[in-house]
């Protein structure tokens, strides 16, 4: 067993000026977890994500990756830590002036010395993995919202990151593609040992694939539960159970 947790969030407070979004967050993401960040609309899931991946400095506290203090290391070291993360943004965040293939290829070009042919092979494999085979030369504007999301996932996976952070991967998708996406995430975990951090409020995903979680509360602006979501349904805090059962328990 590894004594140092994969990701540890310690005393984290995220705020916009005086407006505290979430405070005093403490939780651990273990290697191989499918870690769900859940909570109602506007509870600060995405803001927490921005603190985890280096887009917004926390008002207080920090995040450790493999024991390294992400927010207090030298910029070069922080860049190295960032490189081990793959991020899938809510709307895909594809670069609009590049084709899908160029979008997926850019991280690879940046950090590997692959030949153009190998690059193209990897790119089409990644696109096929998310069900977008043959869309290499399409521009993001020519795709539907769900397709953009999946292309965003392909780009996030480009460098086979140790940790994949996805913001609402399956919201807005039909049940079947959403299911496929869950299967893909499971597969990534099992075959590539990717640790997955997923922001979602899709109950099917939370209960279907989540192995660990944190629940952010909108009213008290802090977390009220962490652990396996399946156990939370049975024995967790009333608010968490309420959320996970759509208010039927």
């Amino acid at each position, binding site marked *: 067993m590894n004594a140092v947790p994969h990701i540890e969030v310690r005393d984290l407070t995220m705020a916009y000026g005086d407006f505290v979004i979430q405070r005093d967050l403490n939780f651990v993401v273990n290697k191989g977890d499918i870690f769900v960040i859940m909570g109602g609309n506007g509870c600060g899931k995405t803001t927490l994500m921005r603190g985890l*991946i*280096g887009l917004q400095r926390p008002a207080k506290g920090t995040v450790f990756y493999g024991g390294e203090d992400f927010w207090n290391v030298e910029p070069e070291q922080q860049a190295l830590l*960032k490189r081990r993360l793959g991020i899938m943004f809510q*709307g895909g965040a594809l670069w609009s*002036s590049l084709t899908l293939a160029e979008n997926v290829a850019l991280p690879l070009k940046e950090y590997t010395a692959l030949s153009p042919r190998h690059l193209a092979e990897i790119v089409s494999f990644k696109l096929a993995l998310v069900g977008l085979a043959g869309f290499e030369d399409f521009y993001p504007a020519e795709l539907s919202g769900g397709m953009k999301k999946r292309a965003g996932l392909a780009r996030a996976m480009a460098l086979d990151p140790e940790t994949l952070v996805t913001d609402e991967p399956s919201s807005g998708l039909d049940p079947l593609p959403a299911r496929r996406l869950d299967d893909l995430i499971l597969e990534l975990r099992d075959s590539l040992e990717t640790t997955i951090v997923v922001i979602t409020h899709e109950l099917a995903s939370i209960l279907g694939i989540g192995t660990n979680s944190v629940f952010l509360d909108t009213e008290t*602006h802090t977390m009220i539960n962490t652990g396996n979501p399946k156990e939370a349904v049975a024995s967790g805090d009333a608010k968490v159970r309420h959320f996970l059962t759509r208010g039927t328990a």
Partner: protein
Amino acid sequence: MNWSCPMVQNRNEKQWQLDTRRIGDDLLELSCAGRWCLDQDLPTAVVILAEMGDNLRRLSFNTAQLSAWDTRFLAFLRALLTLCDEHGVSIDQGGLPTGVRHLLAMAAAVPEQKVARRRSGKQNLLFRVGMATIEFFRGAPEMLSFLGEITLSFGRLIRGRARFRWSDLWWEIEEVGPRALVIVSVISFLVGLILAYLGADQLRLVGAQIFIAGRTGAAFAAQLGTMQVNEEIDAFKTLGISPVDFLVLPRMLALMLMVPLLTLYAGFVGMLAGLLVSTTIFDIGMFEYYTETLRALQLKHFLVGLSKGSVYGAMVAYAGCLRGMQCGRSAESVGEAATSAVVTGILLITISASLMTIIFYRLGI
């Protein structure tokens, strides 16, 4: 006590009616009858509160005679509920229609976020001036740090380590240069005509550069702003690719290269316009105009024009990219970024023009 609606002409529906009845010491029963709908002028909850008196502890409803209700009724009740809550009066909703009770419950299910409510309402002029001033000084370090980032980015470019695509640079060059020719021609020609008539020197500034601040600066801000909204810039940051290198540098270079050329071209078109006025109106011969122009023009005019153009181009690109990168995360803020880019661009052009005039004067050029 009894309130009722003043009679409305040409309307057959029963109007609203509200009766209050004291039951015992501390209970008040409200009887709502008739229509309680959006098209009516209903009483406010405060009126009833005044009626309630000090010793009231409970409130109940009787809606047996209620013929129609909609959101207006719900809003009235919600305000009443809030008031009662504040005054420690308990409410028995048993007498309300089932639908009303359910909707009220749903509205109350998610408690209001106290922090989420923004301070609103009008602030006085002094307050707003103060806030604007604070905002300005808060913005200044941000402007400087962006300038620093661009400088670093140019440093990387010189060392051959900046990451951007040359194809993007060519694309931007084409976008800001050749595609601007028609409108630059028209403006320069018209300005040239005016100059020839008036001999006014100050108008020269109103030419190509201001136009570029509008056309290109706004476009840059809108493009980068939209990328900000789409999280595209975040995606660059998380990958460790500098958005300044990838997005700002090619735009900056394109304008610094193309504006001097456009300035020269604008000057040429302006001279053509002058020729037209001179020959047709002032009876100056074409040959005479040509030799006089040649005599007046010196190489240093070209050099000054080129260097000024380059500076103006940099200012416009700086303003456009700065406002684009500062853009918020909504469609509205993209519009604000574009507007602000034009204003900032023209301001920076004016400031740098004044500075350069002084510098060139001191240098004796």
